[in-house]
Structure formats: structure tokens, C-alpha cells
């Protein structure tokens, strides 16, 4: 599949449309990288070299990878073996091929280089192959953009459920959620914005924001890949700043803002701490700086009856937010509750604006 350049540039252009006065005037748009599985398979390689590579890669896993779990809760060798299998799948190696020559999407040298980066430098697998499988989506990711987490998939389940319930009830607001304006603040790769846009109806729209231009360009690329450039608009800027023109119009707000307490950043698993952008992880003291800012500011953009869902670091942050919304800003929120992720961690806070 070729890079859908047209749709991509269209999406990004919308950032600079005259509506967005809050945009910095010159944005350096970096060209997003093409994920490995979308590169063309032009590198003819003898099967025997590939088998050799496989043996080498396995040995590397065994010699270097066995203590990752104990060092910093990193991947175990079973996971690494599975990653190797996927790596070869993405690189175009088809096991069932009984021909002697296989066609790869990268040269053999690069294949070695990439796998060395994975094991020796602990470069995240998703950056190595340039994509993350998330829900039913395959999202392009690269350095500078947070790799979407499986936990976050649940937010989409919650939103889908909400839309379904609304349709079943068919009250006078009718399909406000399905046909309204949603925002995804700190969109990163665009994961939440894209999944939600696909759940919305014809009239539904999403504005996805991020402070990071790299994230904005990668999100734009992903939006283009799913043909959603007419539904999702990407804006660059800090939290609510790019939303001046949609005050009180937003029916749904989702965000997975940085929430790791600053003092924990150093101790993170190597894949995260050494490779993922700090801007996407560091939530300041207690990790609550951005979450609180979002809770306080949200009322200004939300339509009455609008829905919100935030991802948090777990029980402590979730309880704090619940308390905050129910007491400190009394009267603004209703039906606020904590939802657990699939590991049973109290991961999300959801509710409605009065």
C-alpha cells in the first residue's frame, strides 16, 4: 500500500486553516516514517541467509534477553520470541514459501541492525517495526510519539457502549453523542481519535490535539491511512488552547494525558524511559498536573450533558479525581465513576457535565 500523501497533507493543512489562530505560525512538519510492513518488498534475500539471521536473532534473545524481567520488569524471552516472529512477518518473510529466494522489505543489513537495536538497546518493538496493533487498527508510530497502550483500548469500549445505549434509548437529545463533536486531547499517534471517529455517525467529528508536532504529523498520517481526514481535524497546541472556537460545543472529551510522577521517570522500564518521549509520560509532581488542568478547564468547552473519560495512573489518581469532581468543583459533574482496566487496576474516570 502506498503512502497516501494527498490525504495526509490535506489533514495537516487543516491545522493551519485560518480558524486556528492559536497555532504557532511556522510548524516544522516532519515526514512520518513508513511502517515496515508497508515498505515494498524489493530486497531479494536467499532463504538460507534468513534462516541464519533467525538463528542469530534467537541466540541474541537467549544471551541478552533473559534478565529483562528482573532488571526493570521488561519483556521475557517468550515475548521476545513472539516479537521475532512478528518482526519477520512484517519484514515480508513468509515461512510457507518454499522458494529459495524471499523478498524482504528491508535489506539483510538493516534486518540485523534493527534486531540488535531491539535487544541490545531495548528499542521498543513497535518503533522497530514502525507500527502498533491497537484494537482493530494498525497505527504508525515512531520515536517522539507514545506507543498506544492496550489499557487505553478500554476507553473506546466505554465510548462505543455509550453510543449504543444512546441509540437504544432514543430520548429527546436523540443521538447527540453519535453525531456530535468529540475531542481527544494529547492524541499522540491518533489512536483514540481514530477509533472514536469510526464509532461515530455521519455527522460526528473529532478534533485531536497535541503539543508535539511529531505526534501531530504521525496522527495525521494515521488518519489518512484510515481515510478519516474529513472527520478528524488535527490541531497543534497545549490542551484547551486550540479549542477556542468550539467553546460549549463538545459532546465528548477523552484524554490519556501524561500521568507518571516526575520522580518515577528514571526508574521506568528501558523501552519506555530511554525511548518514549518524556512529554508524553511526565505528569509533573504526583503525576496529576495535566489531569487536574484538564478537569478544571473542561467545563469551558463542554456542551451540557457532555461526556468525559480520562485515563489515570491507577487507584490513587482515580480516587483523587473522583473526589475532586464530586467535591471541589461541585455542581459541574454528574455520574462520575471509576472504571477498571482488564488487569483490575482502577484506570479510568468517566462522567458527564451538568
Amino acid at each position: 500500500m502506498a503512502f497516501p500523501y494527498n490525504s495526509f497533507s490535506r489533514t495537516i493543512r487543516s491545522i493551519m486553516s485560518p480558524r486556528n489562530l492559536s497555532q504557532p505560525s511556522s510548524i516544522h512538519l516532519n515526514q512520518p516514517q513508513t511502517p515496515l510492513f508497508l515498505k515494498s518488498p524489493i530486497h531479494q534475500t536467499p532463504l538460507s541467509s534468513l534462516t541464519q539471521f533467525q538463528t542469530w536473532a534467537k541466540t541474541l534473545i537467549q544471551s541478552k534477553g533473559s534478565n529483562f524481567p528482573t532488571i526493570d520488569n521488561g519483556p521475557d524471552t517468550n515475548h521476545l520470541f513472539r516479537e521475532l516472529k512478528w518482526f519477520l512477518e512484517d519484514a515480508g518473510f513468509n515461512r510457507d514459501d518454499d522458494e529459495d529466494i524471499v523478498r524482504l522489505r528491508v535489506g539483510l543489513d538493516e534486518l540485523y541492525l534493527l534486531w540488535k537495536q531491539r535487544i541490545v538497546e531495548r528499542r521498543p518493538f513497535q518503533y522497530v517495526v514502525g507500527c502498533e496493533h491497537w484494537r482493530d487498527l494498525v497505527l504508525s508510530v515512531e520515536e517522539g510519539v507514545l506507543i498506544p497502550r492496550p489499557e487505553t483500548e478500554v476507553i473506546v469500549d466505554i465510548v462505543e457502549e455509550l453510543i449504543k445505549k444512546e441509540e437504544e434509548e432514543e430520548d429527546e437529545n436523540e443521538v447527540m453523542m453519535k453525531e456530535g463533536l468529540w475531542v481527544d486531547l494529547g492524541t499522540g499517534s491518533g489512536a483514540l481519535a481514530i477509533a472514536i471517529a469510526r464509532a461515530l455517525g455521519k455527522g460526528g467529528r473529532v478534533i485531536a490535539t497535541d503539543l508535539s508536532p511529531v505526534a501531530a504529523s504521525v496522527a495525521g498520517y494515521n488518519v489518512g491511512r484510515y481515510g478519516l481526514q474529513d472527520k478528524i481535524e488535527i490541531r497543534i497546541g497545549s490542551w484547551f488552547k486550540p479549542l477556542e472556537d468550539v467553546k460549549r460545543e463538545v459532546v465528548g472529551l477523552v484524554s490519556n494525558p501524561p500521568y507518571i510522577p516526575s520522580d518515577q521517570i528514571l526508574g521506568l522500564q528501558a523501552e519506555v524511559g530511554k525511548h518514549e518521549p518524556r512529554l508524553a509520560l511526565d505528569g509533573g509532581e504526583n503525576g496529576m498536573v495535566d489531569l487536574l488542568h484538564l478537569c478544571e478547564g473542561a467545563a469551558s468547552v463542554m456542551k451540557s450533558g457532555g461526556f468525559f473519560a480520562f485515563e489515570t495512573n491507577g487507584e490513587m489518581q482515580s480516587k483523587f479525581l473522583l473526589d475532586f469532581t464530586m467535591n471541589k468543583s461541585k455542581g459541574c459533574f454528574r455520574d462520575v465513576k471509576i472504571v477498571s482496566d482488564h488487569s483490575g487496576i482502577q484506570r479510568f474516570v468517566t462522567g458527564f457535565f451538568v
Partner: protein
Amino acid sequence: MGVNLVIFIFFYSCERARIHFSCLKMGSFLLRKSCLRSSVLIQNPRTSFLLFSHLPEFHSNLDSTVVARGAYNWFLNVSGFSSKPQVMKTPVGFNIRCFSSQAIMEHKTCDGLTIENIVSYQWPILDESEGDWKSHAAAISQSIQLIKKRLQWKQLVVRLQMLSLELSKPDLWDDPVHAGKISREHGSLMGKMKEVNGFERELLEHIDMLKLAREENDAELESETMKALLSMRRSAKEKELKALLAGEQDSCSCFIEVQGGAGGTESMDWASMIMNMYKMWAQGRGYGVTVVDEVRGEIAGIKRATIKVEGENAFGYAKAEVGVHRLVRISPFDSGKRRHTSFAAVAVTPILSDASSRCQINESDLSIERFRSGGPGGQHANTTDSAVRIVHIPTGLTATCQNQRSQHQNKALAMSVLQSRLDQLEIARQAQINAQHTHSLTEISWGNQIRTYVLHPYRMVKDLRTNYEVPDPNSVLDGDLDGFILSYLSALMDKDEILYEFGFYDRKR
């Protein structure tokens, strides 16, 4: 009346024989013969049935209509008839109305031969190449009887009558789900019956034709007919096989699940050998294979694994593999090189294709868990592990999936595994019999051994249910399983009494 009948016969034979270049010739024979014997024909119920039963096809099949029209003009020319035949006006519904007589009606040749008496004459069945017509006819008739037995013919007829009665009720479609089920089952049984009846008729017609050819000394027609008989004899074998897979779920795709028995690495290695065997068997049959769940052993092999096998009749075949498989060999994991016996259990679940017959799963009855290595998760962790386990709380059934690349996909696949397990439970419940094939892995008793694979001190694979035996374990472990499967299925189906012991063959009568 007599004339019309003759025209029927003529059209009919043209249609049947439209690929034969001697079509017109055969028609002329039949015509001449029929004219001579028209009075006989009119009284012969088989012939009159044969005439009408094909009319709907006759109308709908453009090809045969064209042939028939041409032949009809030709007929008018030679015979000098000019009156329009009433053939075309025969009500199309006729076929349906008389279907029960179709089943009960005994098919006969002009001189009264039936399948039953062909079999009872016990004509010697010679090799295909040297066979005379009697030999072919005897082989084909035997096949037809076997097919009918496998299809449980008498019960099929009764069930079909019940279904058409139900279909004719005016309030049937008040419950569209039920109606859909009924009409689908009716369609499927009807299809089977028509196929067998058609085959039977074809045989008897060829016999008639052959006799005719001999009386008329037409060598060309005779050799054509012999060829047709031979090709029938070959396709009869295929039909026998097909009849083995006539169960309601047989055509479905399925999950195959393998679990190692006690005995650590040795039996985990055995489990992975067995799983490999199924993967290769399935691929060899052209089925799609997806690994759903795989828990590796610490040193080698798998603790358990589930694959999804997609394709026509996957369940029908794979269900023959349910049970415990035993391996005897010198263990490569034993430094003392001693002989070990290991076990692996196999379970097979059909993936029902008919959505209306699937169990409704209540979201609130599910607990969805993600495996994790501990820690705070979320932004803290980068992992490519998104394994999901779903527990169906009311039944305690679980399904696990970790081989997909996103949690969402793992969840979707685990859901489909769970759905199949619940469906299977429901099938068993409905059959109210603890059917062998509905055992889940945990229920399979380790005593239920179905097959032994010996690699040492001698080499052999033997099925304990059928005594089917192969001296080369390698070929079997490479997926060459069809011999075992077919011999088991035939043994199972050809024993009438046994059928009722199995929920899967119960057609809810």
C-alpha cells in the same frame, strides 16, 4: 396423453444426456421404443414420476431448455406432430407436492429391476477396468445402499415429511427465526434426498438404455452407456465419503485444542508434536489455520494450544480426533535414554455458522482479564503481550488468547472460542446425551485413549477404536491423518445402533 408423455420422456432424456454427443440418437431410440410401448409407460409409476420430477429444473435451466427446444422442433419435424405440447404448463409446484411419494416411490427399470434386487443378486464386483455392466451396477447399488444407511434414510424421510408439514403452516413465519431454521433444514435434507434419488434413477436409466442399445445393436450407444456407468461408479465412492459428513455441524469450521498430560517436558513436547500434526493436516487439506492460544513449556513443547481450522467439513473430519493420544519413545529429554510413555489430549469444537442457533452471551456474565507481569501498567509499561482471558461466570468456561497483536483482537478471538464452547455445551444439553464429541478438554478422561504412536522399540501408529494401523509414524506426524479419520468415521457411521449414542448425529427427531 400418450403423446405428451412421450415428449416428456424425450425432453427428459435430452436434458439428462445433454453432454452426450449421441443425445439425439438416444432420444430417437427412446422415442421409437416409447411409442411402441407407450401403454406400458403410462402405467409405469416410475416413468411418470421421472417425467414430472424434473420440470422445475427444466424451466429454470436455460441450457437444458435450449437443448430441449431444439430437440422438440426436431421431434415435431420427424414425427409430423404439430400440436403444442402442454408440457410447459405443468404446475411447477407439482414437484414439491409429490415429494413424499418421491421418497417412498421405488425406482425401477422398465423390466422391474430395483437397487435392492440388484444388490440381492450378488453379482460379482470385478475390477473397474474389466467390469461388465452388472459389475458396475452392483457396485453402484451397494454404494447407494451404504449412502442411504449413512444418511439414515428412513428417518430422513420422516423428518422431511414433518418439516414440510411445518412449512405449510400458515403461521410459520410469525416466528422468523424458527421458520428460518425449519426451511434451512428442509432445504438441506431435501438436497440430500434429491441427490441420492437422482443418482439412483440415473443408474436405472442407464441400465434401461444399455438393454435398449443391445436390442438395437447400437455399439456406439452401448459404449457410451458403459462409460457413463463407469463414471457413476467412481463418483459413487465420493458420495459415500460425503455421506459420512452429513451431521448438522460437520460442515463447520472448528477449534482444535491440545493439552499435554502429566510428565513435564516430555509430554509437553508430545503435545507440540500433535499440534504440529494437526496444523500440517489442516494445511494439507487447504484449510486456514490460525493459532489462537499457545502456552509454551519452560524447556520445550507446549502446555496447551488452540488452533482455529477454517474450511468446509473441518469439524466433520477433526471430530474423529477427539480423545487421548499416547506416545511411546526414547525420550530426547532423558539423559538415561529410557523409554517413556506420554499422553496428550485433543478436543474439537465446531464453530457454528448459523448465527441463530448460537447461544446468546450476556456481557454481564463475563469477566475479562488481562495477563500481566505486575507493576502499574499503563504508560509505565511497554509490552507486546496483550493476552486476554475470558471467564463465563455462570458456566465457569474460560477461553484464552494471546497470539494476536492487539488486546482487542485477542479478546475477539477468545470470545469466539468461548462462544463455540458454550454452543457445544448447549448442543450437548439439547441432545440430553453426554455425547462423546462434546467433551471439553477438562472432561476428557485420560483413560479415553484413542490412538498409540510407537517410535520405539518398533514403529507403528495404531487406532485403538478401529485397529487401523500404519507402520510409518513420521508420515502420520507430518499430517497424513486421513486414513485414520476416514476409517473411524466409516466405522462409526456404518454401525447403525451406535448413531444414537452421539448427540451430533441426532437430528432432533
